[in-house]
């Protein structure tokens, strides 16, 4: 998915390869790569190292592509696949806006390197509804006005669904505790809890 930049030999290759800890972590052969840089093999090598193959199922569709190993799952979704429903709120794993499901469990996509999802099934907010029919949690968020600006909403909803599936929605207090990783700066929290409580009590399949 990387756009191919023109070949431009340069001095920075050595430091680039040495300093990129992410590359070091996942590169195919880091020693060889650094050696290549020392020998000024350069952009071609970098381009090769910046590409790892990934095959991941997202919202029921399999995507097979080459990605920059530094790409987070969040950036893969937003920038490479243009699935912008998953939001970047901090990129540090502190706000929950980027919450998606990987193999059915809620994860922070900003702290997940996309390369580690090879072979996984990812569900994002775009994959939650059944066609035009909203997921019960989406409908409950609308009914209870569980948002204002809407930016944290996809993450809240993905977390809320997981919260019920995990069995962590048995009381308002428990919901509040297990939803506290999802920040809503507009502060619609009580409405979000109302929505989750209603879905939980309604017993619909989530």
């Amino acid at each position, binding site marked *: 998915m990387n756009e191919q930049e023109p070949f431009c030999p340069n001095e920075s290759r050595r430091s680039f390869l040495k300093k990129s800890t992410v590359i070091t972590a996942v590169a195919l052969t880091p020693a060889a790569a650094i050696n290549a840089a020392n020998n000024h093999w350069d952009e071609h090598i970098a381009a090769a190292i910046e590409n790892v193959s990934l095959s991941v199922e997202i919202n029921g569709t399999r995507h097979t592509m080459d990605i920059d190993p530094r790409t987070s799952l969040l950036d893969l979704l937003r920038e490479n696949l243009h699935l912008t429903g998953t939001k970047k709120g901090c990129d540090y794993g502190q706000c929950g806006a980027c919450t998606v499901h990987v193999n059915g469990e809620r994860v922070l996509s900003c702290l997940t390197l996309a390369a580690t999802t090879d072979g996984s099934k990812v569900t994002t907010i775009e994959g*939650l509804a059944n066609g035009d029919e909203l997921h019960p949690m989406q409908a409950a968020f609308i009914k209870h006005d569980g948002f204002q*600006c809407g930016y944290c909403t996809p993450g809240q909803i993905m977390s809320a669904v997981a919260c019920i599936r995990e069995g962590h929605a048995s009381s308002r207090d428990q919901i509040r505790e297990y939803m506290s990783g999802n920040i809503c700066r507009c502060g619609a929290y009580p409405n979000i809890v109302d929505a989750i409580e209603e879905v939980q009590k309604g017993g619909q399949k989530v």
Partner: protein
Amino acid sequence: MSTKSNKVIGEPMNRVDGKLKVTGAATYSAEYKLANIAYAVLVSSTITKGTIKNIDTKAAENAPGVIAVISHVNSIKVPGYQEQHGEPGQPKPAGRPLRVFYDNKVYFNGQPIAVVVAGTFERARYAASLVKVQYDKETPQTAFEENMNKAIVPEQAKQNPKAAVADYTRGTPDGYASAPVKIETEYFQPTEFHNPMELQSIIAHWETDDRLTLYDKVQGTQPTQQNFAREWQIPVENIKVISTFVGGAFGNGLRNWPHETAAIIAAKMVNRPVKLMLTREQMFYMVGYRPRTWQKINMGATQDGKLVGITHSVVGQTSSYEQFTEGTLQQTRTLYECPNISTRYRLLPLHVSTPTPMRGPGEATGAWALECAIDEMAHALNIDPIEFRLRNYPEKDPDNGKPWSSNYIRDCYKMGAEAIGWKNRKQQPGMLRDGDWQIGYGMAIGMFGANRQAAKVRGKLYGDGTVLMQCAVTDIGPGTGTAMTQIAADNMSLPVEKVTFQWGNSDFPEMGNQGGSSTVNSVGPAVVAACNSIKQKLLEMAGRNKQEFANAKMEEVMFEEGKLFPKDKSTSIAYEDILKGGGARDIDVIEGARPGSERQQYAMYAFSMHFAEVHVHAVTGQTKVAKVVACADAGRIINKKTAGNQMIGGVSGGIGMALEEEAVIDDRFGRYITKDLADYHVAVHADVPKVEVLFVDKPDLLVDPIGSKGLGEIAIIGVAPAIANAIFNATGKRIRELPITPDKLI
């Protein structure tokens, strides 16, 4: 004319954009798909004051995929930099806005000093880490208390002795001193950050050499358009600003910031659309904050609870290059009947970035001191704090003697006291306990100007009987699109399904910032004006084609259920048929509405009253807010669901302000220690209880023809002091420094 109305105004209708928001289909600024887009990542200063001696960009330039590294060394000249003072249509602090990449000067830590542009985000981010900078450092001053003696009189006050921040006296200066009962108290509130969930983001796209399109996270499309037209010296109409969905702002989108100019420079230099999204850490340095403020209140009262005098002094933080002031002292002059008032506002310039309005700007800060002091005085007098406030209720605005356009604050006392269970409160603190939990009740008032701006709306009635309305206004979360749809539906006498309201585009008719709680008050009347204009044209068209309406006047007809009737209802004609008969495809109008002379005759304010029940753990000092009642005298409520949510949100923000939010700066380096959401705590789910929202819901037709008074600010003003007063009632401990963390209570 009569239009059957109030069918949906006031109803708790679901949001018109709710489905987009819950499905991820709402598009925010960084999410527009443009061909050939490049990614920009900012490099920030690591020193606080000084000059850039050398900036080594070679490694970054040579990194794979890098298109450009731009700094003051090689940036193109921004033509408006030479003469730019303030920004049209935006809050104007005295001084000069930071000019990004203009010269080698560093004014604050985290200042953007270079931008790296690459074909992918990963490449840009990595290359940004390779930029090496050498500085000539100077010693910065960022410590507030140590520098308080260097506070200055604001420039505004020097130039205009009647300015809101100029020294003010009513009655005898420091008249409190003659009172039999006196208190003297000091309050401190730290810097607080807006931290909306959406990171400040922009896509800048030069469509041609002098035509610029911005997808920008701002609170005003047209103020942004005007600002950049001036900055780039191109005609306003050459700039288009799209801000349809804004992921929260709370004031930090009220002006334009250096990162926006950086993206525009970069887009021009690389000749590609450029996307720039701040990191969360950069959000703490580059886009404003609620300034640290020290306040001192001297208050005097008679034994029977009549205020004699209040002297309120303020020192607020600002930057070294701009003077930011806010309405911290307004409530002290207005909220209570009090013969002697003195207020003094001073500014402390430090080597930090410039503050900017944050929800309830000034008033939330001022209420924190004033409403705690009122509680302290009520305690000193051994009078119930509600009763004390009632004894000092002003029948008219004591600041200027003008009558209130409306003031239902006494209704709020009754409604709120009952809902929170005020009768359970003990006048003496520390009397209620449940095991280790000490229980207390507190309350506080807030007020904010019922502001109104000029606005215009385009209204279009189509041949199929549907209506489209457009306005340049943004919707940062309150539900403007929904409220305007309701107003248009009622005024056109159509079901909401037939009405579409579009916003967030500078090409649409005139509106300033979504700020100062003024949106419904401003855009609502313009929607009504557009509806009235369409109806007038419908009648004229019907009169030409249908005998029954020939020469009919508006007062002789009725508009109901999408049809035009004569008063006797002997016949009717649907809007669609009027258009068909007139051979018209549509009716297309642009109408405006603006405030008038009533603004000079009345004191116009919205009021809020917050009641809190808190539980404070006697051993750990942990405070749990058990219940909050939020009562608002905000005029007519257009949508009880979205307005109620806004009040709840103000309480959440106020809980953060009261108990958690605090910027800590390491004065050795002038850098924030709290620069992410793990260290800078905002309220989360576990912190916010059920909030009961009560609306007086009485229209104030003097403020605007809709009768609304605005809600966004009063939602938070008074929350922090209500909680502080409740903590005192629970524990007997009076904490005068925010946030009230457990260490202060044990």
